[in-house]
């Protein structure tokens, strides 16, 4: 039993080592071996894209809450303006030369 256990154990160890070494066995001499990570520009763009999506989601939620009656007409009028401005600002910051922000807002909203 001990011999069998040792054989199975050795096989397990060999298989594990081979699997761990797989990335090196597959690419012994790669052109590049660097982890992909966003640069400063991409991180800023990601931040802006998040801000845009958050503002759009908030606008959508506000519309729906108004429709359900959770938000009164007065509250809606008070809240919707600043939110639309936020969406427009986020879109402008992210895509300065894109199509008109109003189009994007209406397409997404």
């Amino acid at each position, binding site marked *: *039993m*001990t011999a*069998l*256990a*040792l054989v*199975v*154990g050795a096989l*397990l*160890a060999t*298989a*594990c080592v081979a*699997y*761990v*070494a*797989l*990335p*090196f066995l597959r*690419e012994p001499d*790669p052109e*590049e*071996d*660097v*982890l*992909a*990570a*966003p*640069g400063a*520009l*991409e*991180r800023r*763009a*990601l*931040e802006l*894209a*998040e*801000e845009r*999506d*958050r503002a759009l*989601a*908030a606008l959508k*939620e*506000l519309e*729906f*809450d108004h*429709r*359900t*009656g*959770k*938000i*009164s007409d*007065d*509250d809606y009028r008070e*809240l919707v303006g600043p939110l639309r401005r936020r969406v427009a600002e986020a879109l402008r910051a992210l895509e300065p030369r894109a199509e008109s922000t109003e189009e994007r807002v209406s397409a997404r909203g």
Partner: protein
Amino acid sequence: MPELGRAALIICLGLAVYALVAGAYAAVTRRRRLSGSAQNALLAAFVAAGVASAVLFAALLRNDFSFTYVADHTSRELPTPYTISAFWGGQEGSLLLWLLVLTGFSGVAVAFGRRIGADVLAWVVPVLGLVTTFFAFMLVAVSSPFETQVAPADGAGLNPSLQNPYMMIHPPFLYLGYVGLTIPFAFAMGALLARRTDEMWIVATRRWTLVAWTALGIGQLLGAHWAYVEVGWGGYFAWDPVENAALMPWLAATAFLHSVMIQEKRGMLKVWNVLLVVLAFVLALFGTFLTRSGVLSSIHSFTESPLGAWFLGFIFLIVLGSALLIGSRLPLLRSKTRMESLVSREATFLYNNLLLVALCLTILWGVLFPILSEAVRGEQITVGAPYYNFFLRIFGLPLLLLMGIGPLVAWRRASLRSLGRSFAWPAAIAVATGLVLLLLGAGSSWIGLVAYTFSAFVLGSIGYEFVRGTRARRALTGGSWVNAFAELVARNRRRYGGYVVHASIVMLAIGIAGSSAYDTVRERMLSPGQTMAVGNYDLTYERLVQRDGPNADEARAVVDVRKGGESLGTLEAGKNHYRAEDQVSNEVGIRSDYLTGEDLFVITDAINTNGTVVFKVFVKPLVNLIWLAGLVFIIGSLITLWPSAAEQRRLAERYRELRALARA
């Protein structure tokens, strides 16, 4: 083959150490292939842990008493299902289950976590490697399930309390919950280490927390039902330190699942959310420490163990490391937005968080105080149910009320006029319910009355939300009410699944209030033929029956039950004497009325040699709502857990845009 088990654990430890060291080096030096290799090591560790587990399972099923663990926790008479559950019935086996689940979850997190970003995943791997290293080391060097001995003729058997079908599934669910909280912790630490605090890590963390939180919730309810039907003292939760140990991380995770929405919607509370993720994980470790350190005297704890100091050291390391990391990343976690009003959805979430964390820390203090008292002053002090019940009322009732208020309040801010309109119906339902209950005599317990009134308010608010939402969706898209309802839920599964979970908590509150504030208890010694009255029931002790079970000698008192003169049949309650373990357990008799949710619960406190029996009988109104709440909780959790296609699309689109930007 204990040698194979030991070898597999050593291989697992080696792989975990490699994942930790090589993974951290790869993340620091940004080496892609080395990072992939460390990820593979984590996946291979699962296979190694699987082999070790298979060896222990085989030994249990073969009654191989040359394994000390098998001899200590099973016997030849033990039925096969309980022989299988003995895998986690002892300390070493349960640690192995921890490792198996941890490596399994880590493998899934690595395999499906690639979209979080290679740089974050590269840091997640060494964090998972660190936790895996700790547990594999415990199993290799401190508490091995593969210790051997000269095989005795028979084993010592399993604790009779653990010989119950619930023990087949209750511990695995708890482990899924405890261990599952490692993954959000790893994602949170990975994101901080990689200096990435964008939404992706929060989405991954939230999903994993939801999985762990659901498993932990189900595990606790299964445990409560096990205590109710098996332990035989008439209750389902005794504020045992080990029960508290499972409740605390669940409360911390509940707080996180609410506050994470504020981060997603408003970009606020980033530091608080990371702290909650760390708190939930540390409390899961603390719970594991409590059951293994020997510091507690509880039927759950595997006492007299050398593991305590190791666990304390590891918890200290995690707390210190997390605190330093969070401190060093504070500038990244600073929020740019502020709360606009104290009357808003986010404010109610914040109040809910404060109450949940306060309740969690109060329970923690109740658990820690006797330990500290004994360690520092040598005095044995017990913190009992009155302490916990007091704080459960202080924090739990406002929490219940907030569950009703939250859905009615809009994000950002709400005017008094909007609130008045939203609150009118739910408040009217609550007041009407309170008045009706008062007239029906529920005023005998003001806590019960308040809990019922608040519960009615929450159910009213949830119902009102569904009605308003369905009406708005139907007005928007036309079609039938059913379609509009289905579309409403499908478009926002988290919100409406969450409401279903809230409904389950309300059912739980009603069940707890009904069965504890309005229960009836009678205790009496009866001779055969004598009758006792309890509530509306008349119980006649008919006879005592002795019989041989598969692994126990059973004594059962047969009781005839009548309600209002009408016969409801008989029920049996008694005791089992487990032969191999030489232990006696209570076997309760329960008659459930599923229409009213009420239970008649019979315990035989003593069976005397002259044939008399001391009966303790409870009538527990609405107790079955607690178990029904479990089913509703699962449904709500599944709705919430179901991946949102819209969210996936939104994130995919965002990262596609970024890749395009990077290429440009």
